């Protein structure tokens, strides 16, 4: 996907000024609420007209206000999965899935019905009324319907936001599977950074109605000016590793991180050797300049300070522990402990503050 944006969207008093070229296979759009995430998707889907400017996708002009050009939604071949699914309540699941497929010429149907049904485990739902589906089932059907439109770009508008935590986790793998199976360019909007890090390669950070940054997370996080923005978007550390040891008697799973350190997290059913992602909020981590004992904090990792970023009352410290870890502390801590880039420090956090996922 190559998206050229030079457009202004006016929504009441809010102005969204989009300038830039986005090239990505799967791009996660995030930012604080009200930053224009959904307006961006509306613009691409043709549901929102720009006040000024141009939108070009893979060389095709979708909007050009100066030239009076606006490709209507139904001619864009851009699939959308909405937060609430928006299935057609008077049709059963099968008819919903085939709604867009039936409108395509045979030659344009690149996604097969049986494949989608198998991929999203929909076989048992086909005869159900769409109004009787649970939230998770509804979103799977909505995803299947969008896939069967054989879109050239798939837009996901907070597709998991209406689901509760457990359900979210069960749907995430479907999103990832769909992406891998059909090699479909994707723009995934969410306020949940961990969710995006699971499905996307790149991130697009929106703030104050503008594109604040675009690129892989590592690149965005290394730009210290963006740290406060990242933080506001629900910044979370994602550490990658494999299960090293199970200690059911302590209720602990030990995970060996890429980069060598070992982290303890609450016991999980995954066997030794399973690859895991560990989520850890910057505010749940403490810093120490010498080894500490006699604390209930199970995890103490040694690292080196990479960067210190302060924004108003908040300070974010990037610490290299083999992988980069962001730590939020108060300004007082920085001066008291003398935290400066290059200084070796220990990072401390409770096992309970770590969430693991496959």
């Amino acid at each position, binding site marked *: 996907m190559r998206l050229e944006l030079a457009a202004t969207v006016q929504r009441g008093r809010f102005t969204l000024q989009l300038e830039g070229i986005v090239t990505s296979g799967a791009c996660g759009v995030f930012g604080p609420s009200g930053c224009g995430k959904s307006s961006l998707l509306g613009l691409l889907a043709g549901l929102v007209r720009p006040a000024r400017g141009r939108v070009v996708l893979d060389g095709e002009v979708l909007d050009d206000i100066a030239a009076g050009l606006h490709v209507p939604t*139904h001619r864009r071949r*851009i699939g*959308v999965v909405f937060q609430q699914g928006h299935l057609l*309540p008077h049709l059963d699941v099968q008819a919903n899935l085939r709604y867009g497929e039936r*409108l395509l010429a045979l030659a344009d149907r690149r996604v097969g019905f049986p494949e989608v049904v198998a991929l999203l485990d929909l076989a048992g739902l086909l005869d159900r009324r769409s109004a009787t589906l649970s939230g998770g089932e509804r979103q799977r059907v909505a995803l299947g319907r969008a896939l069967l439109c054989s879109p050239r770009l798939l837009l996901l508008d907070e597709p998991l936001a209406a689901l509760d935590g457990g359900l979210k986790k069960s749907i995430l793998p479907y999103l990832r599977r769909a992406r891998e199976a059909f090699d479909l360019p994707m723009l995934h909007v969410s306020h949940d950074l961990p969710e995006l890090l699971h499905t996307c390669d790149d991130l697009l950070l929106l703030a104050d109605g503008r594109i604040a940054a675009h690129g892989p997370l590592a690149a965005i996080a290394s730009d210290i000016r963006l740290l406060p923005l990242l933080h506001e978007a629900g910044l979370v550390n994602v550490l990658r590793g494999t299960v090293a040891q199970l200690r059911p008697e302590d209720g602990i799973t030990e995970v060996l991180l890429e980069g060598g350190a070992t982290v303890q997290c609450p016991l999980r059913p995954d066997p030794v050797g399973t690859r895991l992602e560990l989520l850890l909020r910057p505010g749940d981590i403490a810093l120490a300049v010498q080894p500490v004992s006699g604390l209930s904090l199970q995890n103490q990792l040694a690292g080196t300070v990479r960067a210190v970023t302060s924004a108003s009352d908040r300070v974010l410290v990037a610490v290299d522990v083999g992988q980069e870890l962001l730590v939020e502390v108060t300004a007082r801590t920085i001066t008291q402990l003398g935290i400066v880039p290059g200084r070796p420090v220990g990072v401390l956090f409770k096992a309970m503050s770590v969430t693991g996922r496959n």
Partner: protein
Amino acid sequence: MLSPAEREIVLLSLQVAGTALLLMAVPGIAMGWLLARCRFPGKTLVDAAVHLPLVLPPVVTGWVLLMACSRQAPLGRVLDDWFGIRLVFDWKGAVLAAAVMGFPLLVRAVRLAIELIDRDTERAAATCGAPPWRVFATVTLPLAAPGILAGLVLAFARCLGEFGATITIAGNIPGQSRTLPLAIWQYTQTPDGDGMVWRLVTFSVIISLVALAISAWMSRRLGARLGAG
């Protein structure tokens, strides 16, 4: 069971109300959709014009129609000269009166039903590649169907009961414009008419009940399709 005179009255009533309903169904649904979904200059005026017959005394509506459709008026002359249609003192005039009086009830019901449909559901259909007319036919219309049905029943009932506008434009001519309400009124003015009044009132009640039963049955079927029943 029915005397020839009674049969003439009942059949004429059904013919007038049925024809009026057929005439207004498509424009009524289109107008309801227009008012629910579109913004255009003069919308308030159109809205008011559609609803005028609801608030005007029916006799006034009838008189306006009479003025517009008589041979002396341009519209009446065009209808007569070009199409051979005479509305004044004719059953077709009764149809026009009934349709004009029933129209706002249909439009209101359709508008309400369409306004209740989540626009995002229609937008979702558009993102699947459905052009606007297809979204209307496959999403809006089926979802609004119960409301549209209710509007049709209401309008049909209004047509059956139409009196003031009908008598003003079409008169009270047996076989032409003497529908059930006019006949009932006629017999209340006649000595010894009580027996006929009772019988005609009974027919009115039966027709209304049957219409209600049909609409209840259809809305139950629609409701089941929508997953709500």
